[in-house]
């Protein structure tokens, strides 16, 4: 009977094209608007590290101003100072650990006509790739020594390798970074998590870096940060001047992650951090009450308010708008169905039960929902395109609709249309057929 009801629904829609178009438009506009916002919220709330959520931790240490807490959600600076990061790296408790930040290098090739270009670069320890499950196309990460010594190795993103070497295996080849030769040790496969959970400080929806170089190169190239370098004091160890003053000062600019595979490991690491802070207190640092935080990736996203309250409010507002559209659709469906009440009366006389009439009309509502959903997807895609254009590339990664969201759009439209159709279908199934049989 479902096939029969669908054929009746299509016939009915054709029979009242204007009314049907209005209902489809009502659902489509509601779905289009809500899916535009919900898609953005959905993409913003993705956790690329969900599969490792239980074992990864972002590390925060409260080395901030003794007179004023850091202006963050948990009142601990998001990032670490360079000396703290280097000290934590000495721990052998974590299975893996990463200290890193963002920077930029000018890239060119010897004996090439290619114009030099500035590449977003991640300065990091070698565990970055294994801790965040970054896939390699060719080669791999650099040696452990490079985390603390000046080893001129580089890992290229897939896109950079295509730009520089046409996508071929470039391991062992040399690229010039700021005029210095760096040997390619690895090339990544396409990898671009969004939000960029490993670094939420510098636009969580920006693309991943184009180059990756060892953490041990700081002093050799006086690498600063292409990101936030907040500090609460300009004091630095005695005798430190210039770059060394920046490196050893109280600026927080290093992101730090650890992988702790068991509860025992985590407990041991917490003890280690406690001990480290106490030790620093004895040396006159960490003047605030002892405080640190280990946050899972999912907690880290919430703490950093990647999906902010404004987005949540907008999400609810879009659903409220959809509800308004559904109410409109209810009125239109009621008008349409009651106009067909005599036909329902005839069907009842010919053997249709109330449930059969109810189902028939609910399926007609669902058909309107499917069409409204498909049109709604087109409207949502148009809306996302508009947002991408307005944001000028800042949200390209999230203002896109994947298949899941397209299916969700159709599902939402069907749900909305069934919701809209429930009352009209119930009304028509409860009417007394004899009234219409006599008066038709």
């Amino acid at each position, binding site marked *: *009977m479902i096939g*029969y009801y669908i054929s009746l629904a299509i*016939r009915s829609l054709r*029979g009242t094209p204007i009314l049907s178009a209005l209902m489809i438009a009502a659902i489509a506009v509601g779905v289009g608007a809500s899916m535009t916002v919900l898609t953005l919220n959905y993409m913003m709330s993705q956790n690329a590290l969900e599969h490792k959520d239980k074992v990864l931790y972002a590390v925060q240490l409260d080395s901030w101003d003794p007179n004023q807490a850091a202006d963050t959600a948990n009142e601990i600076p998001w990032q670490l100072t360079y000396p703290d990061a280097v000290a934590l790296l000495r721990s052998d408790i974590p299975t893996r650990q990463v200290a890193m930040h963002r920077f930029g290098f000018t890239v060119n090739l010897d004996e090439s006509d290619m114009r030099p270009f500035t590449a977003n670069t991640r300065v990091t320890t070698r565990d970055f790739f294994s801790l965040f499950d970054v896939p390699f196309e060719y080669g791999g990460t650099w040696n452990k020594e490079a985390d603390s010594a000046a080893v001129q190795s580089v890992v290229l993103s897939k896109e950079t390798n295509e730009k520089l070497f046409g996508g071929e295996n470039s391991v062992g080849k040399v690229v010039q970074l700021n005029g210095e030769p760096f040997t390619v040790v690895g090339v990544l496969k396409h990898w671009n998590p969004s939000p960029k959970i490993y670094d939420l400080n510098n636009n969580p929806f920006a693309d991943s870096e184009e180059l990756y170089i060892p953490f041990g190169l700081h002093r050799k190239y006086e690498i600063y940060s292409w990101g936030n370098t907040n500090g609460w004091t300009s004091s630095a160890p005695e005798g430190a001047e210039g770059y060394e003053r920046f490196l050893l000062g109280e600026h927080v600019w290093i992101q730090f992650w650890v992988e702790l595979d068991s509860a025992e490991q985590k407990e041991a690491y917490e003890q280690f951090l406690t001990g480290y802070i106490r030790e620093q207190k004895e040396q006159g640092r960490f003047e605030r009450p002892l405080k640190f935080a280990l946050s899972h990736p999912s907690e880290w996203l919430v703490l950093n308010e990647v999906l902010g309250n404004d987005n949540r409010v907008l999400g609810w507002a879009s659903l409220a708008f959809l509800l308004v559209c559904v109410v409109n659709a209810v009125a239109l469906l009621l008008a349409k169905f009651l106009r067909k009440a*005599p*036909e329902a*009366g*005839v*069907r*009842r*006389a*010919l*053997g*249709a*039960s*109330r*449930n*059969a009439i109810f189902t028939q009309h609910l399926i007609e509502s669902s058909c309107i929902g499917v069409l409204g959903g498909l049109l709604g997807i087109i409207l949502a895609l148009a809306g996302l395109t508009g947002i991408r254009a307005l944001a000028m590339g800042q949200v390209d990664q999230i203002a896109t609709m994947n298949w899941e969201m397209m299916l969700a759009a159709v599902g939402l439209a069907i749900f909305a249309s069934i919701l809209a159709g429930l009352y009209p279908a119930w009304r028509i199934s409860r009417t*007394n*057929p*004899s009234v219409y*049989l*006599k*008066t*038709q």
Partner: protein
Amino acid sequence: MLKMHNIRKSYRTDTIETHALRDFSLEVNEGEFVSVTGPSGSGKTTFLNIAGLLETPTGGQYLLDGQEVGNLSDRDRSRLRNEKIGFIFQGFNLIPDLNLFDNIDVPLRYRGFNAKERRRRIEKSLEQVGLSARAKHLPAQLSGGQQQRVAIARALAGEPRFLLADEPTGNLDSLMARQVMELLEFINEWGTTIVMVTHDPDLARRAQRNIQIVDGQVSDLRQSIAQPEIASA
């Protein structure tokens, strides 16, 4: 076939209660052709709606084919209506945007027949009313008499044992009315029980038995249709 005992039906609004049928008792035997006459508002249509399971009585007992139908669920009543009862209405009640084939298909769909069986029954019933060549026409493309024949074909397609006709010739001219009446008589000869509500005394007289309803009650259960006073009632 049909047995009603002390059937009551009343309609209530906020201020008024109207008794459409009062202590209405009637028995129709298998294979009978019964005409029902009575003044407007006497309860003829209410009787027909209750007989056709479109309405439930306020009180009393109704046995259809030996089965008490008063307490049946809507689903069971619909199934019984679909399997045992055929309807013919004054206004034909064809679905305007379905062609003749699809109109006749409606009750067969609810019956659950497969496509082959439905086609066989539709073609047979259209042939019986002489409209095989018009299967793909819409109702609006037919005359009133032809539309009523389609309605009869639709009622016949399910091979009901009981046919209820509510003024089936009311919208037809005399020639068409005679053709439809002859068709009903023909159907009755096959063994289908027919109850026909009519205002037309000539048609009423052609039934085997006439009952008259006045003020919601059967006024004379066994009166012969041949008697002239019935015709003038």
